[in-house]
C-alpha cells in the first residue's frame, strides 16, 4: 500500500517520520518531496508558516520611528504633551509607511491569483505492508498532516 500525505514545514513533520520509523516503516520506504510553492499574493504580515520575502513592515517601522521622534519633540509645546504626540507620531508614521508599501505591492505590482488557506509544503509518500496501514494513517493525522490518502499497490 502507498499512503500519500501533505504537510507544512514544522517539527511535526519530523516527529511524524520518526513515529513511522518506530512502528516499523523502513527509511527506504519513505519519500519526502519538498515542494516549490507558487508565489502567492503579497500578505500584509508574515506569519509562522508564510513569509514572502517582501515585508509590508519595513517602511512602517522606519517612518513610525521618525514621526515618533518629531511628535515627541514638538509635543513639548503642544497641549497634549510629548507622550501623546510621540505615540500619535508613531501610529500615523506606521500607517503612512504601511500605506506606501501597500500601494507599491498591491496596486503597482498586482498579483492576480490568490491562494487562501493552508498550503502544503511537503508531499510524504509511505510504502507499507497492509497490516501497518491503519497505524500509519493514524500517525500521519496525529502529527497534523493536511491531507492523507491511500492507494492500493
Amino acid at each position: 500500500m502507498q499512503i500519500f500525505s501533505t504537510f507544512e514545514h514544522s517539527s511535526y513533520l519530523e516527529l511524524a517520520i520518526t513515529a513511522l520509523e518506530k512502528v516499523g516503516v523502513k527509511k527506504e520506504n519513505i519519500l519526502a518531496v519538498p515542494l516549490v510553492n507558487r508565489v502567492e499574493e503579497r500578505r500584509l504580515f508574515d506569519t509562522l508558516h508564510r513569509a514572502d520575502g517582501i515585508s509590508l513592515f519595513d517602511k512602517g517601522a522606519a517612518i513610525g520611528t521618525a514621526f515618533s521622534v518629531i511628535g515627541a519633540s514638538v509635543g513639548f509645546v503642544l497641549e497634549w504633551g510629548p507622550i501623546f504626540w510621540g505615540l500619535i507620531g508613531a501610529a500615523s508614521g506606521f500607517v503612512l509607511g504601511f500605506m506606501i508599501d501597500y500601494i507599491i505591492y498591491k496596486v503597482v505590482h498586482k498579483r492576480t491569483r490568490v491562494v487562501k488557506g493552508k498550503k502544503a509544503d511537503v508531499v510524504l509518500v509511505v510504502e507499507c505492508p497492509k497490516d501497518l496501514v491503519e497505524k500509519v494513517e493514524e500517525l500521519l493525522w496525529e502529527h497534523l498532516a493536511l491531507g492523507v490518502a491511500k492507494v492500493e499497490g
Partner: protein
Amino acid sequence: MNNFNSTNRERRFKAHVSALGTTQLHLRNPYIIAWWSAAFPGFGHLLLSKYLRGYALFLWEILVNNMANINLAMVYSFTGNIELAKEVLEPRWMLLYIPVYIYAIWDSYRTSVDMNKVFLLAEHENADFNSYTIGAVEVNYLDKRRPIMAIVWSLFTPGLGQLYIHRVLTAIFTMSFIIIFVYFSNLLVATHYLFLGEITQATQVLDPQWLLFIPSHVGFSIYDSYVNTVENNKLYESEQRKFLKEKYQQSRVKIPVTVDEVK
C-alpha cells in the same frame, strides 16, 4: 555540544546556531539598514548581527549626544526655538558627532550590500551549518516562532521580542538601556500624571534629552525581533528541505496498475 563540525571544505556558511543566538545571513534592503543607523548609530550594525561595532557605535552615540545636548537641541529646533537650540548645543562636543554619525550610516549601507552578495553565494553553496547546540547554560535550535508575538513582546518591553527568538546579545543590551532611558527621562512618572489627567505636569516632568532616545529604541526593537523571527522561520524551512532531500528520497512511487487497465 554542536551537531556540526566544519570539514574545512565549505567556503561560506549562511547561518550558525550558537548558545548566544542564531546568526544568519539574509537579503536586506540596504536603505532600511542605513535608516536604522540614522535613527540611532549602532542599530544598523546590530541588525546585521555585527554586535561589537553596533555596541561601540551605540555607546558612542549616548555619550556624545548627551554631552553635546543634541536631542535637546532637536526638541528646540522642532518647536521653533532656534535661539535656545543654539544655546544648549555644547561646542566642546558638537562637531565630534558628525563624522561618526555619517560613518555609521555609510558603513551599515555598504555592509548590507556586501552581505547580500555573500548571502547569495552562501545560499547557492547551501553548505551544512550548525543548527543545534546544547550546553551547560543554554539550548538553542532552529524553530518556527510567531512574528506577531515578537512584535507584541517588544512593544511591552524592548528586548523581550529578542529573548523570544533567542537573540540574547541584542536582548540584554536593549533591555538594559531601556531601563536607563525610562529612568532618566521620567517617562513612567509622566505616564502616571497622564493617567491622572494632568497633562501639563506630565510634560514638565519629562527630560527631553533622554526621552528622545526612546522612540528609536522601541521602533528598532520591534523591527529587529520581527524581521529575525521571519528569517529564522525561513531558515528552519530551508534546513528541513535539505534534510528531507538527503535522507528521504531513496523510495520512488510506482503507479499501481491492474492487468485489466493495461489492455
